[in-house]
């Protein structure tokens, strides 16, 4: 067994060869009547293992205390920090600057309401989507908590977890062609959510029920299969397959009601 080579080496090559990063940030504070959208450039000295989380905090601490952005877990788990990184939606916290050129352009995620600078209101949109799709387990009756839980096939539990891994970061909508045209489109995040609930025997709704929720152009028939969602999903969810599958099932529910 080798002793591993785990020491972070994602850095700047040889020492003494430290890059100066030029980070261009799209700034705008809607709360400030005098604010106008503009690109502002900050210079940051790159450090070993520097992520955009580190770089942005460095800018805020040393250059501009008014800079707005969102991080929570800073570990790629919570979905707070999605933004456009050189034009592509991604999680800033787990993006190493070493993976990017010396000129980096950051912009807020499109589609969502802007709070300020790189901060957008994904939470508000996700809540509204969940309400619209009634995205919770619908079960009749109550469960006796003292009794053994209902059994589930181990493989099924794993399949459900696969779809449950979505972190509602919003990247899929930022990369979505349909969402650009239809502001009420539920997006891959919403369709994946319904696919996850449909797979779960604890959710007792039928395809006819799901059809009522997503059987239109704001739902599964709005998708143009451009699949930007799949390209940018930080959790590598198989969104393409889920959307295609749901489209087939919803078509069936529409054509053969009651079956």
């Amino acid at each position, binding site marked *: 067994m080798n002793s591993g080579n785990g020491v972070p080496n994602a850095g700047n090559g040889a020492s003494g060869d430290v890059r100066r990063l030029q980070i261009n940030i799209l700034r705008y504070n809607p709360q*400030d009547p005098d604010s106008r959208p503009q690109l502002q450039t900050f210079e940051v000295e790159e450090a070993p293992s520097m992520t955009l989380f580190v770089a942005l905090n460095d800018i805020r601490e040393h250059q501009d205390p008014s800079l707005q952005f969102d991080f929570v877990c800073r570990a790629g788990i919570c979905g707070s920090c999605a933004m456009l990184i050189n034009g592509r939606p991604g999680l800033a916290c787990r993006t190493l600057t070493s993976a990017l050129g010396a000129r980096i352009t950051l912009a807020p995620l499109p589609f969502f309401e802007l709070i300020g600078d790189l901060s957008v209101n994904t939470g508000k949109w996700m809540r509204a989507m969940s309400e619209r799709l009634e995205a919770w387990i619908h079960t009749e009756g109550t469960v006796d908590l*003292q009794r053994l839980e209902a059994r589930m096939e181990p493989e099924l539990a794993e399949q459900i977890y696969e779809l449950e891994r979505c972190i509602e970061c919003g990247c899929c909508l930022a990369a979505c062609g349909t969402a650009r045209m239809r502001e009420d489109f539920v997006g891959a995040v919403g369709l994946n959510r319904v696919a996850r609930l449909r797979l779960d025997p604890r959710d007792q709704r039928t395809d006819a029920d799901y059809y009522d929720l997503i059987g239109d152009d704001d739902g599964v028939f709005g998708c143009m299969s451009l699949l930007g969602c799949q390209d940018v999903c930080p959790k590598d969810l198989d969104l393409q397959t889920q959307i295609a599958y749901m489209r087939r099932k919803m078509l069936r529910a529409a054509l053969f009601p009651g079956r």
Partner: protein
Amino acid sequence: MKIVYTDVLVIGGGLAGLRTAIGVRQRGLDVLVLSLVPAKRSHSVAAQGGMQASLGSNAMGAGDNEDIHFQDTVRGSDWGADQRVARMFVNTAPKAIRELAAWGVPWSRVARGSREAVVNAQKITITEDDAAHGLITARDFGGTKKWRTCYTSDGTGHTMLYALGDQTIAHDIPVLERQEALALIHENGRCHGAVVRDLITGALTAYVAKATTIATGGYGRLYKVSTNAIICEGTGIALALETGVATLGNMEAVQFHPTAIITAGILTTEGCRGDGGVLRDKDGHRFMPDYEPEKKELASRDVVSRRMTEHMRKGKGVASRYGEHLWLDITGLGRAHIEKNLREVKDICEYFLGIDPVNEWIPVRPTQHYSMGGIRTDHTGQSPTLKGLFACGESACWDLHGFNRLGGNSVAETVVAGMIVSEFIADFCESEPDVAIGTGVVGAFLDREQAHLQALLDGTGGERASDLRNRMEAVMMDKVGIFRTGEELEAAVAELQGLLRRSRNISVRSRAPGPNPELIAAYRVQKMLKIALCVAQGALLRTESRGAHFREDFPQRNDRDWLKRTLATWEDPAGELPTIGYEALDVQAMELPPGFRGYGLRNHIDHPETPARLAEVEQILTDRPTVDRFARQAALMAYDELLPEIYRGRNERLTEKS
């Protein structure tokens, strides 16, 4: 003046806060949840490893029950826990997990038949019973006698938080995101709500409620390197402290997790070791069996973290430009297992370290992880000194974990506490008359907070919040860490006091309308410094070692003098130190009298009452040779009547009827 009225105000949108909100809603009350971030982004989401509940369905958990879970928890706490609360907890945990199962958490399940697993670096074969097929399974975690930690692959916290988030929406509970409470509104020992700042517009609103619940998590971000999300700054706990009335319990009890990756401090789950991973030093030697022959890598977290630090001090650490570390080796587990059950770990290694843990060792070191201390409450979750203030989850000290928490008991506590405390909150609201506080009082609190923010903006003292914050984090890390001494703690307290004084002279430069991040940093660091002083001062005064609190100058656990809970209050807003007091733990009432934990150092000073209580326990058990375990337990320490009636029942297992 904007005032919003509700029955129950819940501050914090993680697992504990959401479950509390659902509970009071189910009792028909109005409830509002305030959250710094969208609820599903709360730190609860990061719990990878699992949730302890003694279901005992899997082969390696066979025979498990509440009694064993109770004993593990109390030993883990180094006898600091309130044993009645521990009993309430272990009896409710199976119900909590079954409720979550009904709400959609895709818990990993038992699969019948044989499979290979790695235990103690050996491949063994585990055979699951047909009868258990499809029930919730469990993995091994530190400090537990049975495999009791239920999990969803490596996304336990995520699936729990999403299930509760969805239920919150299903119950039509408003979660007001990006809202930060700045102060509790209180009068004559009664809490009436909070003054809250909108983190989009910067506007202040008063929320007036019959019951106010704080569920804001821990204070890990007092430390320079922490596994905690960056919002875990302890400012929710500070709301209680700053009333001058509410008390905080055991703030010096701070847990360090053995295996966070170096530089970023991001956690690799205890599941790595539970599933068979081992720790190695610079020579590739597996050193934990040398120190802990029985539990090895799976002793409790405080013990493993200390042993690792001890080993590095002997020169066995691996040098790197980020400081010393050790290796976590999960290569023996195989690609299939890692990619399924430890995928989050693999992702973290790839993204933050650029390595593949299937083939390479992971550089790790002990890192601040959990806050056992918090807002002191009784077993109902209510502050004993500030009526109408409740707390639950990591921000509370009701006191399940004592001086060290077991892995898997934190997410379990969040939902269990939410279930139990919400019932007591509902009882409280039903017994209380309608909100009896004048708008004049509410307005005064609003004005006070507005004036405070303005003073920071107008400040001419020239201090910067970020400078104070960086220094505080370094002091906590260097002087209030895993190994503590009186000399260093004295220096820490003195320096923190200096920082607190300076924090009263902060000048915020930015005038940006809206949330103003610099202003946020300013008012938060003032609160954080008070919390840091509670931790440091509590640690300085506690001249013994217990659980995660380890004094090199007082290495023994000293039950004779220190079997008591630390209480901190902060009466004078202009003061520079908390007032520290204590409440004794009653040995005579303990089901499990203090003794040796079974791991760590066997080195403690007995409480004078311990031998008598041990004899008494022995006698009680001898007198009842034939009664079942429930009757025996009840004879030792009755607790049933403390639980809300709906959670008193027994838990069904494959081998035990409910």
